[in-house]
């Protein structure tokens, strides 16, 4: 069973790679899989991924978290402050603590005082936005390079590393060859793409990125393989049943929200410490909500969130690196949906045939007719995709059953 599943996954990936590679060679857009694009995409994926995981932890324990954006803002500010004062590692720690503060406020408001979870989240967003502005006025105004809307630049950055032998990293002063870079430069069918993708994932990687990626398997393990995780999820699925088994639902919700806030804070910290070297007002730019979108897109599962975050990160990354390759992206989507269409026809899946056919036709028409996509429209891509996913796959999405419903222990139900 698992073997055939692995085999299918392998087949899927090879087909996808073949399509990507053909499109790259056909349109002559090397940026599609260049290590530059992939590297940028990875950097942009990290904050979205962490925000999505923050949403996961909150909703799995039964509390909606609209306040991720605000907790991220706390993370950017406190992270930048810590990094400015004591260096980047302490900065990341402060970012996590800042986010946890937001999570704690949310927990006290929703779990202790039972106020509406959406309202609490909205107020936390506002509170964070203006709260850090107040702090900036107190701390940053008058400092060199600082002001009401930004912090002074940090002196040092987090170390980055290249994988030795594969991507030209150094081992004890010996500069090893950059094998993947060499492979990428050859532009061979599939192999060149593999080289570009692998080099993008191993070249000049920040340690913060590694931490963010590790969060995914660790969260999956804790939530689905430990006693703590089972109890936490049960307080999101059926708090009444959980309580009858002696589980302290509200305490678990506190834990869940503290972890959620910490992850959101870390997401903010990567923005103000890794992606740039100072805090700036509006730095989060709605990424907390994109994170929420990836959580829905990923069907409240870590692997799905990772996929969604990578998709949005890639779309944003390719826009930054090579904005003219957007049209190649249309061809890519057309070919992908074409492949799915064939699969759906063979397997007689009528619903999927309709869906993939319309996707295929739309993207094919877009490829033939559209030369440039205005920047302003591509920005809304994650949100549009989320609404489409919600509208088409709503039946198959399965959020935690009791997320959003206040729970009062000891009261009759």
């Amino acid at each position, binding site marked *: 069973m698992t073997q055939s599943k692995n085999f299918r996954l392998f087949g899927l990936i090879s087909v996808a790679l073949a399509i990507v590679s053909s499109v790259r060679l056909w349109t002559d857009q090397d940026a599609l899989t260049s290590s530059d694009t992939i590297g940028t995409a990875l950097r942009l994926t990290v904050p979205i991924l962490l925000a999505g995981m923050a949403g996961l932890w909150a909703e799995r324990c039964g509390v*909606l978290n*609209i306040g991720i954006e605000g907790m991220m803002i706390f993370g950017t500010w406190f992270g930048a402050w810590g990094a400015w004062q004591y260096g980047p590692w302490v900065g990341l720690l402060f970012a996590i603590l800042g986010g946890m503060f937001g999570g704690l*406020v949310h927990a006290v*408001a929703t779990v202790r*005082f*039972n*106020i*509406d979870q*959406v*309202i*609490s989240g*909205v*107020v936390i*967003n*506002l*509170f964070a*936005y*203006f*709260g850090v*502005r*107040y*702090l900036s*006025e*107190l701390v940053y105004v008058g400092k060199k390079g600082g002001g009401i809307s930004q912090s002074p630049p940090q002196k040092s950055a987090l170390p980055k590393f290249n994988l030795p032998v594969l991507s030209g990293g150094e081992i004890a002063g010996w500069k090893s060859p950059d094998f993947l870079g060499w492979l990428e430069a050859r532009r061979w069918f599939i192999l060149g793409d593999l080289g570009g993708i692998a080099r993008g994932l191993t070249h000049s990687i920040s340690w913060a990125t590694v931490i963010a990626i590790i969060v995914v398997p660790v969260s999956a393990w804790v939530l689905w393989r430990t006693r703590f995780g089972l109890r936490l999820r049960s307080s999101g699925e059926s708090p009444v049943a959980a309580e009858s088994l002696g589980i302290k639902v509200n305490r678990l919700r506190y834990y869940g929200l503290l972890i959620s806030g910490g992850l959101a804070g870390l997401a903010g910290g990567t923005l103000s410490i890794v992606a740039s070297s100072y805090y700036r007002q509006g730095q989060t730019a*709605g990424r907390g*909500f994109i994170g*929420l*979108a990836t959580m*829905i897109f990923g069907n409240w599962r870590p692997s799905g969130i990772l996929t969604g975050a990578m998709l949005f990160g890639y779309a944003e990354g390719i826009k930054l690196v090579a904005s003219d390759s957007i049209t190649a992206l249309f061809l890519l989507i057309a070919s992908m949906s074409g492949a799915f269409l064939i699969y759906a026809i063979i397997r007689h899946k009528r619903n999927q045939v309709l869906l993939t056919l319309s996707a295929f036709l739309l993207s094919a028409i877009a490829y033939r007719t559209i030369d440039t996509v*205005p920047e*302003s*429209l591509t*920005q*809304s891509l994650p*949100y*549009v995709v*989320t*609404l489409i996913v*919600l*509208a088409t796959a*709503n039946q198959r999405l399965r959020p935690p059953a009791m997320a959003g419903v206040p729970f009062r222990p000891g009261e009759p139900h």
Partner: protein
Amino acid sequence: MNQQLSSKRNSDSMRKSLNTLGSSVAAVILALVICGVLLLITGKNPLMAYGKILETGLTSEKFLEMLKRATPLIFSAIAVAIGFKMNLFNIGVEGQYLFAALISAEMGTHVSLPAPLHVLFILIVAMVSGAAWASIAAILKITRGINEVISTIMLNYIALSFIQWIFETFFRDDSDGGLNVKTTEIAPSGRMPDLVHDRLNGMFIVALFVAFLYWVVVFRSRFGFQLRASGLNPIAARTAGIPAKRMILFALLLSGAVAGLVAMPSVIGDVYAYGPSSTPTQFGFAGITVALLGRNHPFGIVVAAMLFGFLDSTSAVLQLSEIPSSIVKVIQAIIVLVVVIVNEASSRRYNRKIAEQAALSSKSMDVRS
């Protein structure tokens, strides 16, 4: 007997509203104390700050500014409150009013009508386009069951980029060499006259009128009863034959229509055009806080909007006396958080008391029978 009942009901509702008022006032005071502690921690003297706010705020000049700043907040809060009354959370007021501002500002330049009709035309276009944007969320909820909280958040961001795109490609007025980042100015016939020259626009009266209409429609009409019933107990409402889907559609359309008016004080009262930098943003979220503070009641909303307008009007002067002006916004956020918590706690206590009384009286009935 009947009279006795009705007088009892009157005193009950009286006690309830007193309870509400008392808890709101207590919450504001508590929030000010919390803010005072925050100020103390950050090394500022809270008494001096509050003194400054009162001193500068209580002048006739600032009074007009307070009303001016309260105007968009009233619209936005009522838009949010209409949704709240039906348990719908319209976070999308932000996107709805910005979309409405752009469309109505542009449409306003394409017609030539006598003054009052021109203004009315722009207001109606604004309301229709606000409702149109809100209808996306309504349709998604009715046909696909998508939660309006998520869809309106997404639609806010979609609106922002969509508006930017329409503005840059179609509506931007390049007549003076691209310096003017606005739509074409609306002709004088389409402008709302000022109440007090350059200080207070006529839109303030419109805002009070909308608040009155909101009271009539939601609290005194059959439709409003159905709306509130669907919000309080959807299952009972459906059993009583109130069409749930139609109510969702109407509530969101109405909410979007009022949201469409939020930017009007700027579009037809001040700038006479839409511009990405001249049209004010963030009022959608501020409206949520004002609606919460005013407990969705028209009178409460007007008072809450004035309180926030008052605080906003003092921020510039605070800056001069070395108190960070953002403290005003922090105070607002804390007020709302505390108000919501206190309201929840007091209504729970109130409900428990009612339940205990009911239990007691049913027990005594049992004994008698």
